[in-house]
């Protein structure tokens, strides 16, 4: 899922302070699971903002709403009837949701309430770690199901590099060396011969380097 993290309240206050009517808009998908922008976080943030502005003697209308998804036309339509009641929307969705909402409601200022971080997994309660960089050409079949693009600091395709020490990465002693993990898993799978195969130079054109990407699926288009 997409992992996001809450923005500091000071930054949010700075961005919203000039709007008198604000809709705090959550999303029921990824940001709910990673506890950064779901219904619960919308309630907490809206309350914090109300308290802040009351303390400053400012009267503001701060409403709450959480949509099923902000990256979907269908659900975004649910606020069309009320959008004119607000001077701005503070969206707690990921960057995709914020942009999709902004595109749909062109004349309403959109403010992001979270920092979108990466595609990751819930490692343990309160801790999420990166697993995918959406490079558009998955090689996990060759690397024992461990991604060197997202988990190796240098994104090397034929590792480990000289910075791997005792299974850890040179940039951080708490960070596993992705290539050590790959070797260990290939060994456990009895596929160490795969490790001997030198991977070809990476085609980055399917990654973000080739510009913004589009997936077209004619089989599901209507």
């Amino acid at each position, binding site marked *: 899922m997409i992992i996001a993290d809450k923005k500091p309240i000071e930054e949010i206050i700075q961005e919203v302070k000039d709007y008198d009517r604000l809709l705090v808009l959550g999303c029921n998908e990824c940001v709910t699971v990673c506890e950064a922008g779901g219904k619960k976080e919308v309630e907490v943030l809206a309350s914090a903002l109300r308290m802040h502005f009351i303390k400053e003697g400012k009267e503001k209308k701060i409403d709450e709403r959480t949509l099923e998804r902000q990256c979907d036309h269908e659900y975004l339509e649910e606020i069309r009837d009320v959008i004119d009641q607000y001077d701005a929307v503070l969206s707690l969705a990921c960057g995709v949701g914020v942009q999709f909402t902004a595109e749909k409601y062109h004349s309403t200022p959109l403010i992001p309430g979270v920092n979108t971080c990466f595609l990751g997994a819930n490692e343990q309660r309160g801790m999420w770690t990166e697993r995918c960089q959406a490079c558009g050409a998955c090689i996990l079949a060759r690397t024992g199901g461990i991604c060197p693009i997202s988990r190796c600091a240098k994104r090397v395709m034929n590792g480990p590099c000289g910075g791997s020490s005792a299974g850890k990465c040179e940039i951080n002693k708490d960070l596993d060396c992705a290539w050590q993990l790959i070797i260990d898993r290939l060994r456990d799978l009895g596929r160490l011969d795969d490790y001997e195969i030198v991977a070809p*130079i*990476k*085609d*980055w*054109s399917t*990654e973000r*380097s*080739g*510009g913004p990407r589009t997936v077209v699926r004619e089989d599901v288009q209507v």
Partner: protein
Amino acid sequence: MQFRKGFEADEFACLVQIEPPKGTDVSLMVKHAVNVKGVAHGFIVSEMGNAVMRMSSLGASLVLRENGLDAVLQVSCRDRNRLALQGDILAASACGINAVMVVAGEDPSFGDHHTAKAVHDVTLDELLKGLAKMESGKDMAGIELSGSPDFLKGTTLNTCLRGADRENELDKMKRMIDAGVSFFVTQPLFEFSMTQPFLKTAEKNGVKIIPTVLLLKSLGMARYMSRNVNSVNMPSAIVDKIVSASDKVRECMKIARQLILDVKSEGYGGVNVSTLGWEDRLPEILGVMEGLKG
């Protein structure tokens, strides 16, 4: 004559665009450049134009300098991050290069290494700010340098854009001037009306525009550019001239020579001559420069 020296003395600059070789053999590049030594004040050494892998601008610039020729280095944000850019800038300065052009670089998908990753760690604006900082004695991280570079700074300018793109280009030009750019090299020009507003901005701000005069090679090339290259404004009169000429290559040479004279008479700060592989024709084309000297 050295480009920067002449430029700062307000003399009309004659530059030649040089494509470094795709390989290690620099003999032809050097030969062509030496052929116009004295007439050309400097050589703008492309940094992998159109994202085609070639010898780097820095390497080829140093080769030209070894042969007594003045080089204008190009540094591109496409291929290098801020460490590499600064490292090359320091190297260039230490080796005597004193003029640099910052360029964004075309996307790798346009070139011959389609699957390469573009860097774009810094933008042109940020690179220019970084250059200014380096000139003041500190690197982009604010750490003191032992000896600082000093460059005449330039960049590219597209004067034939239309609509909102044109406004954006004018805004960009102003930003670049604020960031320390002294000269702007244009896309190939075949007429000058669309460049006038940019020239006015340049004159107002004490900077110079250096139009590129591109040697057309055939009627087909002129027609292709006229129909397909949005950034070029090709008057039909130019195409007609080539159509009616019996010796089309000779006519193309004549057009290039005339355009160089026009650039001078229109009041630009210099000219950049590009021959795209026909560098052996440079002496004949630049022969016209003799009349422009002084």
